[in-house]
């Protein structure tokens, strides 16, 4: 694994410029977070196709809707908490209900935002976006995947919520890896337990897989980058093959990846599930490393959860 750290927002920023070169319909908007979201790279290259909206998320989303109605493909960029939180009704009525081609880019997802603290750490927005009909929700695991996800989003019809992070994360995918919206990637094979993760937690899941291997436990690792439409087949197959699931996300387990996997398995093939994620609480200030320990999101926590899930197989 290449452990050069790079934030997923950088992958997005690069992709948007590439898209802008190729397609005249690509436009970008930002709610006063142009540099932070990396929309600034697009602005610099294509100033006439960039619209500064000021600190007005609701206005930004609906302006993007108007641009989409006119045949443009707008990327509306701000922090995830503000995009999904402040402009939820605008996204619901003026984007999702009309099934418009608006791409909502929510950066600074999860507690890895760090010192800015809970007001700026989105740990609920995947749930808020996933519940909306027509919405696609993607959580890339590294900058390279974020780049591919951005390019795929631009060609996918309808609204997309792209969840990106602030902090550098290891690049774990390869340039040649195929990225397909709605198609989960199995990164490690194993039949004792399956760890289904998204975003940065995919890296922690891989570390956990290595640790479990040393103890003779073969863990499957699935990168569930698309939360919606979800790859039901990959989830059900993992449950059938392993009989024990761990979900890992840098987000509330209520309605996030844990919720998504539970919904699928409760209907199709119930097995024990252990949840790694934010447990019905707000974030807090601190370094990302420290916060991952406090919120029990580390590889060590995943290892423990895997063992719990495996132990529960007998009770099932």
């Amino acid at each position: 694994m290449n452990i050069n750290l790079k934030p997923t927002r950088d992958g997005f920023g690069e992709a948007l410029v590439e898209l802008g070169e190729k397609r005249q319909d690509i436009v970008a908007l930002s709610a006063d977070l142009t540099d932070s979201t990396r929309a600034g790279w697009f602005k610099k290259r294509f100033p006439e196709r960039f619209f500064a909206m000021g600190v007005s998320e609701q206005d930004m989303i609906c302006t993007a809707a108007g641009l989409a109605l006119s045949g443009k493909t707008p990327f509306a960029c701000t922090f995830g908490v503000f995009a999904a939180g402040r402009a939820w009704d605008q996204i619901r009525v003026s984007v999702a209900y009309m099934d418009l081609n608006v791409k909502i880019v929510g950066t600074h997802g999860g507690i890895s935002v760090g010192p800015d603290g809970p007001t700026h750490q989105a740990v609920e927005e995947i749930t808020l976006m996933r519940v909306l009909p027509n919405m696609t929700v993607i959580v890339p695991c590294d900058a390279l995947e974020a780049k591919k996800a951005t390019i795929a989003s631009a060609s996918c019809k309808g609204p997309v919520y792209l969840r990106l992070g602030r902090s550098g994360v290891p690049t774990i995918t390869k340039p040649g890896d195929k990225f397909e919206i709605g198609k989960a990637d199995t990164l490690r094979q194993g039949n004792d337990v399956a760890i289904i993760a998204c975003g940065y937690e995919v890296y922690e899941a891989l570390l956990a897989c290595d640790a479990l291997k040393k103890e003779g436990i073969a863990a499957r690792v699935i990168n569930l980058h698309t939360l919606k439409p979800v790859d039901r087949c990959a989830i059900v197959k993992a449950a059938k093959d392993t009989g024990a699931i761990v979900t890992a996300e840098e987000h509330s387990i209520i309605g996030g990846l844990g919720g998504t996997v539970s919904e699928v398995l409760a209907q199709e093939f119930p097995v024990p599930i252990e949840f790694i994620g934010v447990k019905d609480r707000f974030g807090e200030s601190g370094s990302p490393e420290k916060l991952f320990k406090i919120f029990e999101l580390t590889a060590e926590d995943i290892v423990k959860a895997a063992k719990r899930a495996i132990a529960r197989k007998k009770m099932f």
Partner: protein
Amino acid sequence: MTKRPDVKKLEKIAREIRVEILKMLTCAGSGHTGGSLSMVEILVGLYFYKFRCDPERPLCETRDIFILSKGHACPALYATLAHMNFFKKEELCTLRKAGTRLQGHPQRGLPGIEISSGSLGQGLSIANGYALAARLDKDKKHIYCVMGDGELDEGQIWEAMLTSAHYKLDNVCGIVDYNKFQIDGRTEDIKGLEPLKEKWQAFGWEVLEIDGHNLKEVTDAYDKAETIKGKPTVILAHTVKGKGVSFFENQNKYHGVAPSKEELGKALKELGAND
């Protein structure tokens, strides 16, 4: 030379549209009577005089854009569109019924309906989006957006006002159906808007203040709005909620209540309609 409106003819159309609105609301058994009747001339002066559209090709590229931000008043828009032959008048009686294209609040997909709306405060931002795209595409289209006065309580409208002015969107024409009421009561009692003209001006808009039921003034305002360059224009149309039927006028209980069959009969008589 600019064409001149035939005001008498427009007044006749306005009467016919009021009749259609009342009939469809009674048929539906629910819906927003007051705010539909107050904006009839705003729609008639636009659609039957100024607006570029083709009912045969509702999405043709050279069309102007109409956005009903106060989506609850859609019966007036449905009746206008049917009168323009975007769809058949017979469809009006399906309003609010299961399976209809005439949803309780507008839904994109019905010919002539540009956007889904109903949650207030969003239309002007969408109008700005259309306007920015038109500028990029060097397209001369005009974007019209009708807002309610109660709707101006929504902060997003004021965000959008800043955006329109900042980007000098002179292809945007806002219209406020200023009927002085919102669900809870008189706008000045609930959350005072005055001095409203000065507020729009302070936000960088050209303001035209008119009697929103006088079709000469309405059409003149649309003509004037087109000539204003370098900034957006808003038409503050002073209107009467429930206009056209004496016992609905300024009676706020008809904000969200449809006429009963008896009321419909009396109302149609007042409007000079037979059935």
